[in-house]
């Protein structure tokens, strides 16, 4: 179909078309940028924490009676013994934190002893015993796990850091960026002067803070801490978690009256809570994009309907002069394509512009190359769908209208 006459007719009623084109442009701008954010957040949520999340839960024991250090140590041993002996429990460990928990302990590591400097590397710290690796479902890809003999109890009078560590590959890569493995046997320094010997490298264990840029960096430390507040992480056999969780809770609560058991939570719940902000943002933005598309479609329907009613007579004349129904439909479809093309071109430029601004102002990722073309095609289709109704109505205008005087 020759677009010339359509284009010239549009020029006679610029304002309406300019408004729709602008609307399409801004819609595309919002749509692709929102989609970029959705994609980024969805990617974040999809990350693996390293744990056997479906079969892991955690709980905390808070002592409120005045126990001596030795009593606290004995209680932890008792507790772990009780839990580990339960049928269906794969393993359990007492630790200060676990991935996705949003609170934990971090330390700076460096290759030479001395005060921390700009070159030191931060890592999350998990204090565990030799059961930590299995409970956290980490695989020692190089080197070995801690031996029972390497595990110590922390001493309030002695701040010396344990001399062994299991580190994630991501942490190793950042410590020695120019000197790739094997990392086993190397030494790093913590707490100014305390050496840590890397006994093994583990595949994956996230830090407790999902929003930290260094979330993949963590270190297992062979130490147990006899404090009033202890977290137990329990890994069960597949499908046993929901059954064992209340069992472990009451087991611990009943075994000692000088404490309370709290924060009983599955990893699934922990994950949900950790990412509630990201999940919410995805929902909000999806809804915004949907609503926006509907509004823009309504705008297109409105303008097209208005044009149909304004051109009723003209359409009648065209029909009288031999235009077929499909030709009338085509006229409106082509007209809409022209408006869409202009709007989408402006929108693509605006979208790139807004993305550059957002990347700089809000440290977002730049858009993937295909997002804008995909958005353009989607909006073009929406426009065609929106205009189809009014166009069909136009095609049903009877040719006899041409001879009627209004």
């Amino acid at each position, binding site marked *: 179909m020759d677009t010339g006459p359509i284009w010239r007719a549009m020029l006679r009623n610029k304002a309406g078309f300019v408004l729709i084109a602008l609307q399409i442009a801004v819609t595309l701008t*919002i749509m692709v940028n929102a989609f970029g954010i959705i994609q980024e957040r969805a990617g974040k949520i999809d990350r693996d924490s390293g744990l056997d999340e479906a079969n892991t839960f955690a709980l905390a024991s808070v002592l409120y009676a005045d126990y001596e250090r030795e009593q606290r140590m004995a209680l932890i041993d008792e507790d772990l013994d009780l839990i580990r002996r339960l049928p269906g429990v794969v393993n359990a460990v007492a630790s200060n934190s676990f991935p996705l928990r949003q609170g934990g302990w971090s330390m700076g590591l460096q290759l030479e002893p001395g005060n921390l400097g700009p070159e030191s590397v931060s890592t999350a710290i998990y204090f565990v015993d030799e059961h930590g690796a299995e409970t956290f479902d980490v695989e020692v890809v190089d080197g070995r796990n801690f031996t029972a003999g390497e595990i110590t109890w922390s001493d309030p009078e002695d701040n010396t850091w344990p001399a062994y560590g299991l580190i994630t590959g991501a942490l190793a890569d950042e410590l020695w960026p120019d000197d790739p493995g094997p990392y086993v046997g190397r030494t790093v320094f913590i707490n100014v002067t305390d050496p840590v010997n890397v006994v093994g490298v583990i595949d994956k264990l996230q830090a407790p803070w999902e929003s930290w840029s260094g979330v993949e960096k963590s270190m297992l430390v062979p130490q147990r801490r006899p404090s009033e507040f202890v977290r137990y992480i329990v890994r069960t056999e597949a499908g046993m978690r929901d059954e064992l969780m209340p069992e472990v809770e009451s087991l611990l609560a009943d075994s000692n009256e000088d404490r309370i058991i709290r924060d009983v939570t599955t990893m699934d719940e922990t994950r949900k809570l950790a990412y509630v902000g990201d999940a919410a943002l995805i929902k909000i933005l999806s809804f915004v994009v949907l609503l926006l598309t509907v509004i823009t479609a309504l705008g297109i329907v409105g303008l097209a309907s208005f044009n149909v009613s304004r051109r009723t007579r003209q359409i009648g004349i065209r029909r009288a002069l031999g235009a077929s129904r499909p030709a009338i439909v085509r006229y409106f479809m082509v007209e809409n394509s022209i408006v869409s093309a202009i709007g989408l071109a402006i929108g693509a430029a605006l979208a790139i512009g807004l993305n550059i601004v957002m990347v700089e102002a809000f440290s977002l990722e730049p858009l993937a190359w295909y997002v804008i073309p995909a958005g353009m095609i989607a909006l073009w289709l929406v426009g065609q769908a929106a205009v189809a109704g009014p166009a069909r109505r136009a095609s049903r205008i009877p040719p006899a209208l041409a001879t009627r005087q209004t």
Partner: protein
Amino acid sequence: MFRYYAKLGLLSIRANPALSALMVAAIAIGIGACMTIVTVRHVMADNPIEHKNERLFHVQLDNWNPNDPYDEPNEPPEQVTYLDATALLEAGRAQRQVISFKSSRVIQPDGDEARPFQEVLRATSADFFAMFDVPFRYGSGWDAAADRGEERVAVLSSAMNDRLYGGEDSTGRLLMMNNEPFRILGVLDDWHPVPTFYDLNNNPFQGPEQIYAPFSTAVAGEWGSTGNNSCWKPPEEGGYEGYLASECVWIQMWVELPDESGKAAYAQFLDDYVTEQKQLGRFPRELNNRLSTPGEWMIDREVVDETVGVLLALSVLFLLVCLLNTIGLLLAKVIRRSNDISLRRALGANRAELFRQYIVEAGMIGVAGGLAGIGMTWLGLRGIENVFAGYDFIEHLVTMDWQMVGLAVVLAIVSALGAALYPTWRACRVSPATTLRIQ
């Protein structure tokens, strides 16, 4: 004449119900989206102590690592050490000074059937209540003597008093925490500062603590901090004593000063204090002390999440789309009614009168859109609450005040009038002569 225009506007709205409804809906949805985000942002950025903003100052001292600032480019730590907090409290050079930290205890309620529970509390020096204008329902806070005497006294929030004592006047009763009795001195009236400006670490939207006890008592009992603890080097000695003597920061410090000159004098005092400490081998970095008002401190700590900024930008664009939609619909209406406009012009209406007529009509659409927009905002906030289910503080962030309701209406009217400008201008340009040609 306004009533005449209003009558014409109503007639016109009634004559095009679908078009008018679409316009009202477009404005309402746009306003709803925008105001939802603006409201959340408004609550997050609210300064609950605005009325004392010019007199309260958060204290920062730079005791950090000589090789590496606490935060780039050269930010001092957000909190202070025990050494400095207690020294500055002791010096007493401000009108009031508060040092405090977040801790937790196991509360053992009276009665056999009540189970003990762990509760976050605030360990603070005595001036906290007077400095932050905390209202009391029963009794009062403690005094400096209680601080010095490391007395086991406590203040409860009204909610905690309801929970433990059914809301009755509990002053004088003994509250068991970790098997130690604390005498209740006072019960707070309703007090819900959001954000908790006095401690912006961790989540500042969870609301204030429910139990308050003297700082000195907490330290004597070796209570740990459950807030942020940061050290740039390990304590030289082990144990709680070693931690108190260390360069680790974990205490929030605020001072109240009478005016600008008081602030200058206190800043000088801090510099002198740090200079003196340098002689003892502490404070290896250059002088970098800060005094920030609550408002400044909230901005400094970026209390408003940047995601809110992204959403705000997108929601403004969203409103723009809705307005473009409205402009298009108004324009269609004007073009459809050019007969009427032309006729009125022929009958003697000048451009200004027509302009007023159409602006009044647009204003009416704007008011309707604004009122519907308040409803949309309410829905939007319920939506936000819904998708954030699980965050126990979310209900604090999704409440509309009258200021926001007013803003919604004003924004709607301004938007509608703005959207009406071009179509109205077009209406005014319709020639009176066309009325003769239409036959």
